[in-house]
């Protein structure tokens, strides 16, 4: 199951992604993909990043004409992607890194997507922390997503953003089976309102996450969110997972 978590910065998208990794890595083999250069999934998962896919790609771009003629860069890239995979006892992580610089990356990105698609098939769960622009998803990571979760703050504007992300995904020909809204930092009254707003534009709220003191504390102290045990937000994501897996 490939789950992409998207949303604008500051909505708590990475919190949701981290909790999904925490919960689902107990259920099967899991690959987390940090595909938002402005987020810090690796950090919230308590992992020090070594090499990003972006670095691997830049190095290949720079050095490919120095490769021996019988060395296929496609296969070399496959090797390097494996080398850049951060392997922990409970899950693996790929950090996509910055978008490319000058020059033509079409063939490289095309092959990269093929490789990541192949790699992804080896896992029961793939969790992608995707940026709102979905650039990485469409061009470098994968176009096949089972579930797209859009995290939003409790506001009508947040719903509009979700609607835009949905349109964007369709425009970029990202195939998804379901797209749901997660309203973060909700209160009792905003919960109901969000669900109404969403209905108006034909979106479904799959769950809401209450304001969580623990998450705020961990964030403030820069501690990995994955270390949080038993919190309101974690429980809420667990509920969402149950709904997702049931489908």
């Amino acid at each position, binding site marked *: 199951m490939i789950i992409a978590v998207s949303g604008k910065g500051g909505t708590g998208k990475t919190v949701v992604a981290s909790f999904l990794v925490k919960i689902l890595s107990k259920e099967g*083999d899991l690959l987390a993909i940090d595909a938002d250069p402005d987020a810090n999934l690796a950090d919230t998962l308590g992992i020090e990043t070594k090499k990003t896919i972006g670095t691997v790609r830049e190095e290949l771009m720079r050095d*490919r*004409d120095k490769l*021996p*003629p*019988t*060395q*296929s*860069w*496609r*296969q*070399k890239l*496959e*090797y390097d992607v*494996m*080398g850049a995979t951060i*392997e*922990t*006892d*409970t899950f*693996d992580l790929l950090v996509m890194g910055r978008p490319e610089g*000058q*020059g*033509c990356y*079409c*063939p*490289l990105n*095309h*092959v990269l997507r*093929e490789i990541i698609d*192949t*790699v992804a*098939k*080896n896992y029961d769960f793939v969790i992608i922390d995707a940026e709102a622009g979905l650039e990485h998803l469409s061009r470098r990571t994968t176009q096949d997503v089972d579930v797209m979760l859009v995290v939003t703050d409790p506001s009508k504007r947040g719903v509009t953003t979700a609607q835009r992300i949905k349109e964007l995904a369709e425009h970029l020909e990202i195939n998804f089976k379901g797209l749901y809204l997660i309203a973060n930092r909700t209160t009792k009254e905003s919960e109901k309102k969000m669900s109404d707003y969403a209905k108006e534009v034909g979106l479904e709220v799959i769950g809401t996450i209450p304001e969580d003191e623990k998450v705020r504390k961990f964030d403030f102290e820069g501690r990995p969110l994955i270390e949080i045990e038993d919190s309101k937000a974690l429980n809420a994501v667990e509920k969402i997972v149950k709904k997702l897996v049931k489908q």
Partner: protein
Amino acid sequence: MSKLPVDVGIIYEGERIRKANMYADLAGPKSKGAELLKVVAASKVKDGSVTVIGPDLKDMKEGSAYPFGVSIEVSGKKLEEDLEGVFERRIHDFMNYIQGMMHLNSRDIIWCRISKEANKAGLGLNHVGQAMVDLFKAEFDVIEKIQVTFYTDDKKIDKFLKDARAAYEKRDAKVRGLKDEDVDTFYGCLLCQSFAPKHVCTITPSRTSSCGSITWFEGRAAVKVDPKGPIFAVEKGEVIDLEKGEYSGINEMTVERSNGEVERVYLHSLFDYPHTSCGCFEAIGFYIPEVDGIGVVHRDFRGVTPFGIPFSTMAGQVGGGVQSEGFQGMAIEYMRSSKFFAADGGWQRTVWMPKALKDRIGNDIPEDVRDKIATEEEATDLDSLKAFLKEKNHPVVARWKEAVQASADGGIAVSQFEMPVAGVPMAGGGMTIIFKNAKIYAEKVIIKRNDK
């Protein structure tokens, strides 16, 4: 197929073994290794034998990395040394067919992994070797005898690594010399059609894709992975002009893939029917009429060409999948090709390129012209370029003299020896006139509509 403790089949291709499920790492970034397939005399092969020099899988420490050398020797009456590389690439496929075994890349940068399940099932290197023997024989009838040797001993592998590297070098040297006339299949690439809908890239041994990413070998590998993908095989067909690089198969393919927009392509010339340019070429080759020479500018160069315009401006005019005579988007690697604008004189006609590019190509520039090619340090405009070429007596200078001679003989004042005028009648009665490096002086020019 011999009986193995694990399954063997194409469905296991693409299998990745996670560290959490890994029994042992073989070669890879934490150790060393290589694979080499050699064609040898029949007397040297004990058919079907598998030898392991060093610890076998069961004797390895769980979770560790070991050296891994794979030596496969084959013999057969019809076998040639040239097939070694082709066969050797199949080790990657065949090892991946084994359930619980992962194999990445090739040559001396391989990485294999054995899963905990495979180890539990009792998989040994003798089994892996047996699978190689069976799969190679099943796939290639020409292989009559085959033997496999694995090196996992940290010391004893070193000689094998040295031999393998020497063999690769020999093979690479041969491959570098591969030319268009040595193969029957070229490759086409449509990856850029989203930006340049009429553009199709032709990839041959002598012409890397304009973006610099797809060599002929890479094209071959891509087609094998995905035959229906954006990179596809093209039979080169009849050779229409070897020097210019015109082939019937390429012309037909180009007509089809460019929706009829482009009918002919010269792979190795800037003139008449140059290869179209996508938008993401690494460099541009351009004709400089004033000195009758060729310049090359690459994407990273921020300065201006002798024309007074930078790469970006030129790229805007050249790209988009059109044939623009005298200009062509190209790979930097193309400058290493023996057919580098060969029809136009190649290096003997190359007069300018940025210093960074010249340094990068370095010794691949023929020695006799290397110092005669100007960079932005010697020439920033046409006048300084002309002066530099004259001072260095660049081969193009001889062409100027011929042109002057022609002019003295009573011709019009042109500085180019040949001045083809191409007139292509078009539907609706229009026509295109191309003057190459022509200087026309007139008191008055009147253009009138022809009302029949």
